[in-house]
Structure formats: structure tokens, C-alpha cells
């Protein structure tokens, strides 16, 4: 798995709550059997007008969003479908960090499996970042997972609160399956004890 230690990048703000995974990557792109190449379909329905031309009002189509790698959003980001295609699309597009007051559980989990860092901050901190993203263009943030600090060049600082084990795995880029298989004897023991052995 891809590791994540520290990342500095341009921020794009998406002032919407409850962004669901159907919007992040619509169903017509879930027919592919590959894990890559979903970035060009990210937010497909929002990013295009009916005639297929880019929607100039969409957040990611703004000139100042060019090259952004940190997405700032409102509460309950990534709700709905469990599709891991959503983090695949965000990652493939170039995002490494997503900041919101809250994330849907399955999406949150899926981010860590793809070397992306979802950061939960308070509503007040997120509001502060929305304002800073308007005041400073371009606006950049640094997410340092090692020191667990999110900061900008203008005095903002917030703690990145993340479960110790998830942090450890992400810093090291550890493969979950490899980790679990270190305990394979325990799995076999469990199966034997519960009469599940084949």
C-alpha cells in the first residue's frame, strides 16, 4: 500500500454537505474491472454541462483549483454507497488529503486503504479553513502525519486526530493482508476452536 508521511498542497473548497459517493463517481463508471483510471470521471455529473462541456461554476473547474491536492468539504463527506471507486477516483485525480467535519464510515476506511488521509476537524476549524481558502489564493496546507499537525503559512494549526494503528499503517505503507497473515496461526486456531475447520 502507498504510504503517507507529509503532504503540502493546494486546497480546493467544496462548500457542500453530504457529498455522496454516487456524486464522487457515478455508477456508469463502476463497470470497469480495473483499479486505475477513474480520475477523469471524478464528479462527472457536477463537472459537466448537459452538452458535455465543462461546467464553469463547478468547484474543481475553477482556474485556481488547477493542481489542487487537498479537498476541503462539509459534514458527512463520502456517504452512501461503499464503492471504493470513490477514493480511487479522488486519488487518481490527484487528491492526497480530504478535510471535513465528518466522514461516512465506509468511505473513511476506504481512504486509508489507498494512501489518502481523511482529516476530521471541528465545524469551527473547517469554517476557519473555508474562510482562509477565500482570503488567500492560492491557498496551501501542510498535513504532517508524523507530527499529526495540519498547518498553513499564515498561522493556522490544528491537530490531526487519527487512530494510532491507522497512522502507523499509513506512515509505513503497510499492506493489511500481509499484517493479518502474520497472525494466520490465530485464524486457524479460531477455526478449529469453533468447529469451522474444513
Amino acid at each position, binding site marked *: 500500500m502507498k504510504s503517507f508521511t507529509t503532504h503540502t498542497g493546494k486546497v480546493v473548497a467544496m462548500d457542500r454537505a*453530504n457529498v455522496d459517493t*454516487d456524486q464522487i463517481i457515478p455508477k456508469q463508471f463502476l463497470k470497469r*474491472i480495473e483499479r486505475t483510471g477513474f480520475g477523469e470521471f471524478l464528479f462527472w455529473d457536477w463537472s459537466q454541462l448537459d452538452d458535455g462541456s465543462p461546467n464553469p461554476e463547478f468547484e474543481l473547474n475553477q482556474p485556481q483549483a488547477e493542481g489542487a491536492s487537498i479537498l476541503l468539504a462539509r459534514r458527512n463527506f463520502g456517504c452512501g*454507497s*461503499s464503492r471504493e471507486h470513490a477514493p480511487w477516483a479522488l486519488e487518481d485525480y490527484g487528491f492526497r488529503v480530504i478535510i471535513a467535519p465528518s466522514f461516512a464510515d*465506509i468511505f473513511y*476506511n476506504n481512504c486509508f486503504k489507498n494512501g489518502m488521509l481523511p482529516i476530521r476537524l471541528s465545524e469551527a476549524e473547517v469554517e476557519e479553513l473555508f474562510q482562509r481558502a477565500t482570503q488567500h489564493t492560492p491557498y496551501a496546507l501542510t498535513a504532517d502525519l508524523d507530527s499529526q499537525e495540519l498547518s498553513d503559512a499564515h498561522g493556522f494549526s490544528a491537530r490531526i486526530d487519527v487512530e494510532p494503528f491507522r497512522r502507523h499503517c499509513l506512515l509505513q505503507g503497510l499492506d493489511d493482508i500481509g499484517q493479518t497473515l502474520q497472525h494466520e496461526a490465530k485464524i486457524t486456531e479460531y477455526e478449529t476452536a469453533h468447529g469451522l475447520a474444513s
Partner: protein
Amino acid sequence: MKPRTLFQKIWDNHVVHQEAGRQAILYVDLHLVHEVTSPQAFEGLRLANRLVRRPERTVATADHNVPTSDRSLPIADPISKQQIDTLRANCKEFGITYYDLNDAQQGIVHVIGPELGYTQPGMIIVCGDSHTSTHGAFGALAFGIGTSEVEHVLATQTLLQDKPKTLELRVDGELKPGVTAKDLILYLIGQITTDGGTGYCVEYTGEAIRSLTMENRMTVCNMSIEGGARAGMIAPDDTTYEYLRGRKFVPKDFDAAVAKWRELPTDPGAEYDKSLVFQAADIAPQVTWGTNPGLVVSVNSHVPKPADFSDTTEQKTAAAALEYMGLKGGEAITDLKLDRVFIGSCTNARIEDLRAAAAVARGHQVSENVNAMVVPGSGQVKIQAEQEGLDKVFREAGFDWREAGCSMCLAMNPDKLAPGERCASTSNRNFEGRQGKGGRTHLVSPAMAAAAAIAGHFVDIRDWK
């Protein structure tokens, strides 16, 4: 021993290994697999030269992407066909049971699991699909996972998990006539909002829940994720055991299994992290008006306006939802005219759902402005409905009667809304574009959907004659 909740008992029974400060390694009893979220997981196994640890605990079918028209014809969309062919080949390669399109037992994965008796109390059940919470109706811990986790389960038969908190949603009293399990769960989501259950495993309790049939309990648990909870569960009881008795894959010594299952319900005095209490008598038939399932009102009320919400984020959400839905706010729900009606999905496509819809449709005609379709949840449901003559009732009323699959719940197959079309749907999500780009979805119960198809607009099913 300290009193424990149903959730805690199942969790304790499945911990394979736990180190302090780390995620638990949990054993998975049943892994359901479908065509959309599995190809990359199987590919991962091949790349790492790994096998499926317990193929006999893994069951696959194709449902999301399948046409619901004539099954004897080839699949027209070559990419859909490739995805289904890939699942078939992967199941063959790794030795997994696969219910193919021409199998009478094919259907939506969350319909066939219970129907075939794979789903049992006390199990941990996972699937690369957020509506896996459906199986919690049996007193199982069942939740959706991502594709990386699908690969993890295939390779190890376990899953790494942080322990969720527990949330009790208790509904006291009896549901009033005309009010269904779908109305109950939509009402609860409206109350707790679309992320009220985030971080929790829900247990539904109370008299109104206990009196539900198994199929109705599945409808309730199915939509737990729409309230943010990955898992929702109901303690098993005689209703559960009688539903399961005689099904194909239940334990051979069924009575011994029941004796064990009887130990599962939450002990008196066990504590939840949070408990909320609701009154069944407060619940009327529900209709969603917005673009998430928490944006819902009673059928006898009006579409809200942004100013009705207190916080600015909610006001913005409401304004965007109204615009997408082609509504101003203030309209009476029963004045909303419909173009399409969809009766189907893992929420509401079981035999009882079809019976309820048929009872409303019998002897009536679908409005000439409405295109209405019925998609049974599985091949077995379809066969049973046809034995009961429900297909005739629907056809004679002007409904389209189709083959089993997810169909227009997510519109991955050819069944979809055109831009601007307004649809009464028995499915679970009213997200923008969910049923087709620009399509406008209102979630309702099967009886409300059938009545709306006939009237051409929403009607209060309590007034239906």
C-alpha cells in the same frame, strides 16, 4: 458476567486476535460477493499469488449490472457483459459458488442470502455493498466493506475493524394501519438525519419492531446505512427461527442452532452508548422530497422551504435539493405528479412487498402519464409471485413485470430515468442522478408507490379505496 448487548456478544464471539490500541481481527462467517466491487479484489489475489481462504464461506451472484429484460438474449452492453463474465471466471478459478443469470436462485445478493438460509443469527456477514446491513434483521452483524477489504476477507476470512459504538433506536407501540416498515425507517432517518448513525452499530428494539415480519425487518435494517450506520440489527426471536426453518443452507441440526441463537438477544440491563425512543403512533406514510433519505416528510404535509431549517449548512443543502428536485418548497406532497414508478430493490422487492403493491393495484389502471415497473428481488420471488398470480395483477394494471436484479435502484443497467423525470421509488437512495442523470427520486413504501402509479401523483395510502 456483565450484561451484554446483541452487538457485543457477536463481536466477542468473533475476535480472532486483538492487541491494545489496534483494530481487532474479526472472523467472517459469510462473505457475499457481486460483480461490481469484486474484480479488483480477485485481481489483487492473483498478483500476490494468494488463494481464497474459505471458498465455502463465500457466495457470489451478479445483480447490480444485469439486464432485467429477456434473459435468453445476450447482454447488450459489452462492458457490463465483461464484468459479469469476469465474476463467473473468478468464481470458477477460486472455487466459489456462483448464482448465474440463468439460475432460478439468482437475485439481489441481499435478497438471496436470507432466502437460501445463508444468513443466520449471530454471524458476521460482509459484502462489498453498503446495503449488507439488511442481514442484521436476523440478529447478525452485517455491514458493507470496500474492495480492498473484500480482498482481505477473501485472503484471510477475517476483517480488521475498529469497534463501533452502539445506538439503540426503540420504537414503542403499534404502527397505525397503512404505515409500513419502510415508513418506519424513513421516519427514523428523518429524525436522526442522514449521518446520525455514523460511528454506530444500531439495534432496533421495541414493540413496533418486534411485531414486524422478517421481510419487514429486512427493510428496516437495509436502510441503516442511509442514517449513517454501517450496521443495523434486530434481536432474533421466534419470527426469525420460523422464517429460517426449512431453508436450504440452514444448519442440519436446526433445533440445536436455535437453542444457541436464543442466547444472542441483548441481556436485561445491558447498556448502549446511546438510546433514542420513538412512538409508532407518531409515524405516518413517508415521502422523501430531497436528495438524501433524511429529507423526508409525511405524505399529508408539504415540501419544506430552506427557511424551515435552522443551520446554514442545512439551509444550503435544502436549497440545492429543491432546485435539483424541481420544487419550490411549500407544495403539498399529494400534488406532486409522477412520470415513473419503480417497485424493486434490496429494500422492497420481496414477496410481501409485491403482495402489498399488488393489493393496491388490483383492478386499477396505471395513470396514462406514468411508466411503472416491478422488478422482483430474486428469481425465487418472481416464481412465487407468478404462482400467486401477482404478475397478472400488475400486468393487467399496466405495470411492466421484469426479471430480478438491482435495476433502477442504481440504474447501472438499461433501466433508468431520463433527465427531469419524477419517480416514486421503493428503493433506498434519492441521491442526485441515482436513478439516471437529472432524474428526481421520491422514496416511498411499495403500497404508496403502487397507489401513486395509478393516481399519477402521490396519495395518502390511508385514504385508498
